[in-house]
């Protein structure tokens, strides 16, 4: 009996128990007219019965499967000839994989020992047995659960409370999944980063000014000593983020002021979605734009002015990234400006302030904390942005403040370190995790500060 068919059968039974439970709850009070005598609405009795039918049975099935598989393998392996018990952990693992592959119908690799073949056949037999038994047990649990719940239905049974408890539990589980995933990602990055810091001291990584992660693959190879000083990467990231913000903050803020204060309704209904359309453009497309349009354009302008601009420059990447971030800044700033209470504007107007005085001296200062929060969120996005810089900023880890040269960023290096075949015990690969960790902390801190500022602002006017 396959697990899937058992699950479908249980779900079918559960649906049936819903119907039976609902009907019985109406029957015990003598018809739909007197349903008000029930503690809960009839549907709740149905759902409760259905839950009792499905949940314990499905849980049991899952546990049975996991424990069963483990146990079967143990039993089968213990039948192997004596050398298994004395073998090393690695060899045991290999034998186990061999048995399982044979059992699942995989092709034998070379000669197969007869005892291994026998073990695989034994595994198949036991597995089928376990599945059948598990299925039968689960189905009976499901029937028992349903009938117990069905027989307990009475006008005083608090069905709604039970159902709501289960719903609450489900909600908690869902939020736990999101939180645990985050925690899991942090831990895995942290673990690999710590492995890296065993190989390369953390201070050399954080304070070193030379980045060259190429390692010698042969002892006599020249020039690939491997240097993991991440300062050039941090500087490149900061440079590009700074250029991006220099573009995004003025354009975003001023367009938000126009949209929220000056534009009439018709302009606003057209212009705002158009501006927000920028946020919907895939970053790869921005990358094309940077490489094929902005980069050559800057180069041409540079030649005309007699300034050397490299083909991949921090300026091109930063400019395009700034354009990409404009909608974030403008949308948030627009919300903050609109949230400034009408009373404040009226107060300023009533004192004889002009529109621009009101905006500059009252509305903007009142919205400033929120706007700063929005800008910080945009900065953390600029730091984490990958695609544009991969395409437009280059790979040269150069420590420079000149935006016309090619620089590289943390995200670009992570991509280039992990692309292609790589072994997971060399510092080259592991350094990507250390970079990821630094990036994660930087954006985390920025987000926390930004959210605090935004929250403090929203408390100010209730």
């Amino acid at each position, binding site marked *: 009996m396959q697990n899937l068919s058992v699950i479908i059968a249980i779900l079918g039974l559960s649906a049936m128990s819903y119907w039976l439970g609902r009907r019985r709850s109406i029957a015990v009070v003598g018809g739909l007219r007197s349903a008000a005598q029930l503690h809960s609405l009839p549907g709740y009795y149905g759902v409760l019965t259905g839950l009792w039918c499905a949940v314990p049975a499905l849980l049991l099935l899952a546990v049975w499967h996991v424990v069963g598989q483990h146990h079967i393998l143990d039993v089968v392996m213990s039948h192997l000839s004596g050398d298994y018990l004395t073998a090393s952990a690695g060899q045991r693992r290999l034998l186990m994989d061999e048995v399982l592959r044979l059992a699942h119908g995989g092709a034998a690799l070379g000669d197969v020992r007869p005892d291994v073949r026998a073990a695989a056949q034994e595994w198949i037999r036991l597995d089928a047995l376990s599945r059948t038994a598990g299925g039968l047990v689960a189905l009976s649990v499901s029937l028992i659960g349903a009938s117990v719940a069905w027989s307990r239905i009475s006008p005083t049974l608090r069905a709604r409370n039970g159902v709501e408890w289960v719903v609450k539990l489900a909600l908690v589980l869902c939020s736990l999944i999101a939180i645990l995933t985050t925690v899991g990602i942090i831990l895995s990055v942290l673990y690999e980063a710590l492995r890296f810091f065993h190989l390369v001291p953390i201070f050399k990584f954080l304070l070193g000014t030379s980045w060259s992660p190429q390692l010698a693959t042969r002892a006599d190879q020249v020039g690939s000593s491997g240097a993991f000083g991440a300062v050039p990467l941090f500087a490149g990231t900061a440079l590009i983020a700074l250029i991006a913000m220099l573009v995004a903050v003025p354009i975003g803020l001023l367009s938000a002021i126009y949209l929220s204060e000056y534009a009439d309704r018709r302009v606003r209904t057209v212009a705002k979605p158009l501006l927000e359309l920028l946020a919907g453009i895939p970053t790869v497309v921005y990358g094309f734009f940077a490489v094929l349009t902005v980069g050559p354009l800057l180069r041409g302008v540079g030649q005309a002015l007699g300034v050397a601009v490299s083909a991949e420059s921090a300026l091109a990447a930063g400019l395009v990234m700034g354009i990409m971030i404009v909608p974030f800044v403008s949308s948030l700033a627009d919300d903050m400006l609109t949230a400034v*209470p009408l*009373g*404040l*504007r*009226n*107060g*300023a*107007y*009533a*004192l*004889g*302030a*002009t529109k621009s*005085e009101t905006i500059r*001296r*009252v509305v903007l*200062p*009142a919205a400033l904390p929120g706007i700063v929060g929005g800008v910080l969120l945009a900065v953390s996005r600029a730091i984490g942005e990958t695609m544009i810089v991969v395409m437009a900023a280059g790979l040269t880890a150069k420590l420079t403040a000149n935006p016309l040269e090619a620089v590289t960023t943390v995200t670009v290096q992570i991509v280039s370190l992990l692309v292609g075949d790589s072994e997971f015990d060399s510092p080259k690969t592991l350094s990507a995790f250390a970079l990821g960790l630094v990036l994660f902390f930087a954006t985390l801190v920025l987000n926390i500060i930004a959210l605090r500022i935004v929250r403090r602002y929203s408390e*100010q006017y209730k």
Partner: protein
Amino acid sequence: MASDTRDVVVDAAKFAVPRATVSAAGDQSAPGAAIDTQTIGQVTVQDPVMTARQVSVHYGAKKAIADVNIDIGRNSVIAFIGPSGCGKSTFLRCLNRMNDTIAAARVSGTITLDGKDIYDRSEDVVQLRARVGMVFQHPNPFPKSIFENIAYGPRIHGLAPTRADLDEIVQTSLRKAGLWDEVKDRLDQPGTGLSGGQQQRLCIARAIAVDPEVILMDEPCSALDPVATARVEDLIDELRQNYAIVIVTHNMQQAARVSQRTAYFHLGNVIEVGSTNQMFTNPRHKLTEDYITGRFG
């Protein structure tokens, strides 16, 4: 809607029947259920600071007030009373052209300040609002320091060339608003940190700081507790020495306490204007009497 009288009468009657008693509408007016929208009482005063003649306001197609005639006297308080939605705040906002900020509002008629039409093309709304200050229903201090709240108006109007002048204006304004002793040691603290009553007096001080001729107050005490209300009312009485004050209020005791003249608004019309004393002891219009004695509103 056309602006002729018949429409107004129909409109008024339509709204009046469920709220006012039938007799309230019937006693005073000509046969039929219509209310007499002609203002009775003393509309004019000697040497008014502001006058309103035939002022009507439309919000889009809806007529909010119709043909209001009223004078605002110098160095006195006039109270506008009436049930909700009767147009008293709308009219108040005409007096310093705050209705300009509402796109749908359309004002007709004539309003003068010291004899000059404030809706005239040559009149600058910024200058007007410096001369006709306003205090709102909810205290709305700017999220700046107490000092900056007061200094804002004088700064934008260039009233204080030097820092010493500004300090002087801030201090006098706060003194006049009776707030100086409470805040003199914390002028750099945010104005939003004051209590509700203090915030409202701060807003009054802010209005005084630009040295207006008229101060408009739109239910200035409705968000305050009784103690704070009493302080603001005392303040209004003191301010009368220097300013003309127009106050909109739902609180009839307040109108009786602080004002010298009272105007009763009903469904967009001024029904009766007179001295506060006469209005509260001997109202001439049945609607005024019904409202003042609490039969509706």
